[in-house]
């Protein structure tokens, strides 16, 4: 498999008042080039921390204590991200140039005091030596691509003049305007209405198909995963429990925790009966003890002891 990112043995700790928290423990997976990889898990599972490691955005009291992230872009020679010095020029190129990020809250990702056109053009001017006019022109093109109408007028407006869905389109335009090889979307639709979510998911999917970039999509919503992902990584308490294709993981989950996550979705349970919870599905099975990922015959990887064979 041609991986654009190879994450190995990644470990992150946070120094807190109550002691050391292991936010990531031996996290490892590949991000296949030109595909959508979804990272799913509940709050505290480490999915956002993993994304922040790729962007080297881990700030004290957190720190990366081990592991490697090999990055193999097509435009520049491959390099390793964890070991980059803070002043390494490749780090600047990484941020927004080679890898860019779309966050959950579009209002906090945009500055309220600059026009939308200014902010998208700034992303270009940060990374490339082009004139302001050229940056403005390319910004207009990208904003049109993400579905804005009346572009010239809209570019001179401020974020507060946009609806939530339109703001998220602007953020996506900003993220894509430098043609990153990897786009990381961290719960980009969680704050949106279901109708707007559907529009944004369709947009991200279509743009990915057009531009051929790789996408890491972080979400807790398995419905969203089913619709957008090629590959799925299931995380729990800072560990990877299961990696497989979207059909493998959602239609035939190998790990009891993944089965619990699926069973807890309200729409799937018969009416009048209590919803399954993770605890009720997992039952007496131990999901707390870490096990190294094992590759099964069908290619997927699962963190279960060799004795416990997969399948419900």
């Amino acid at each position, binding site marked *: 498999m041609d991986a654009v990112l190879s994450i190995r043995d990644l470990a992150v700790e946070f120094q807190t008042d109550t002691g050391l928290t292991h936010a990531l423990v031996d996290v490892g997976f590949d991000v296949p080039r030109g595909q959508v990889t979804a990272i799913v898990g*509940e*709050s505290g599972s480490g999915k956002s921390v993993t994304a922040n490691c790729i962007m080297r955005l881990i700030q004290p009291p957190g720190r990366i204590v081990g592991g490697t992230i090999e990055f193999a872009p097509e435009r520049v020679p491959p390099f390793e991200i964890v070991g980059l010095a803070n002043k390494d020029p490749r780090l600047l190129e990484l941020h927004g140039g080679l890898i860019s990020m779309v966050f959950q809250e579009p209002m906090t990702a945009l500055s309220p005091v600059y026009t939308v056109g200014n902010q998208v053009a700034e992303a270009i001017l940060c990374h490339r030596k082009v004139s302001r006019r050229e940056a403005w022109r390319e910004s207009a093109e990208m904003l049109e691509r993400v579905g804005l109408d009346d572009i010239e007028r809209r570019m001179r407006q401020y974020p507060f003049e946009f609806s*939530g869905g339109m703001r998220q389109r602007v953020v996506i335009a900003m993220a894509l305007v430098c043609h990153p090889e990897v786009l990381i979307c961290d719960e980009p639709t969680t704050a949106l*209405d*279901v*109708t*707007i*979510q*559907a*529009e944004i*998911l*369709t947009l991200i999917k279509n743009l990915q198909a057009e531009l051929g970039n790789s996408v890491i999509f972080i979400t*807790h*919503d*398995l*419905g*969203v*995963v*089913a*619709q957008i*992902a090629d590959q799925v990584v299931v995380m729990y308490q800072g560990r990877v429990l299961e990696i497989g294709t*979207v*059909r493998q993981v*959602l*239609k035939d989950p190998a790990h009891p925790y993944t089965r*619990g*996550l*699926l069973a*807890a*979705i*309200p*729409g*799937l*349970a018969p*009416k009048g009966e*209590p*919803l*399954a*919870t*993770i*605890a009720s599905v997992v039952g007496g099975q131990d999901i707390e003890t870490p096990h190294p990922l094992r590759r099964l015959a069908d290619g997927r990887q699962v963190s279960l002891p060799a004795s416990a064979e997969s399948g419900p």
Partner: protein
Amino acid sequence: MNGSNGNGALLQVEGLSKFFDGLPAVRDVSFELRRSETLGIVGESGSGKTTLARCILRAIDPDAGIVRFQSADGWVELQELSAKELIPLRREMQMIFQDPFASLNPRMTVREILEEPLIIHRAGNREERLAAVLDMLDHVQLEHDSLTRYPHAFSGGQRQRIGIARALILRPNLVVCDESVSALDVSVQAQIINLLEDLQRELGLTYLFVAHDLSVVQHICDRVLVMHRGRVVESGPVDELFAHPREDYTRLLLSAIPSPDPDVPLQPLDRRTLGL
């Protein structure tokens, strides 16, 4: 509809409207809520569902319409009452909020949080209040040693249990759940939904369940109102309405739900072609 003999009705709303700066937020909404049922209110943000719920509880004052509520002393029209006259009725109608982090005072212990409604309504002496608090902790499945702890010591799901206990400690009939499970992880959400359903059976509660997540609504609600731009565009039994939506707006909402089955592709309807 005569207010004095609503058949099993707990709440009757007629022609309710609310304007903000002249802009309509809720327009001419009428419905009836029966005892022990769960009525869902769904719609996008800005559709007026929270404003409707707040008008019913008189958290804000409606501009027009009638809200009849069957209190312990018979039917009352809530919109007519003064703030002072509303106080005794507050025991009978309570709200569970969305954000378990924002809705609990961080400087109060669980005991103080749960005891406060009883003190405000002068219910019982010190021992009786403590007994009621402990009883309510049992109902929401929290340990008794939670009493002396502060909200920060609890997880999101546990905090939501505290919020539920605070709403129920006065033994209300009507409970408005405003996006009460929306901020929770799916597994915690499942636990809280199960708890709300258990409590409804144990305590005979009537829920007005405001939510944007249609799969949650489908699971927990008996009937549902669909709101769009302040109006109720469609209402009916939840299974029937979800299986056979009559209105374009309802079809738009339902078509936007991503299925957890990768072989059921997302094919959202287009708002513009529907003319919405």
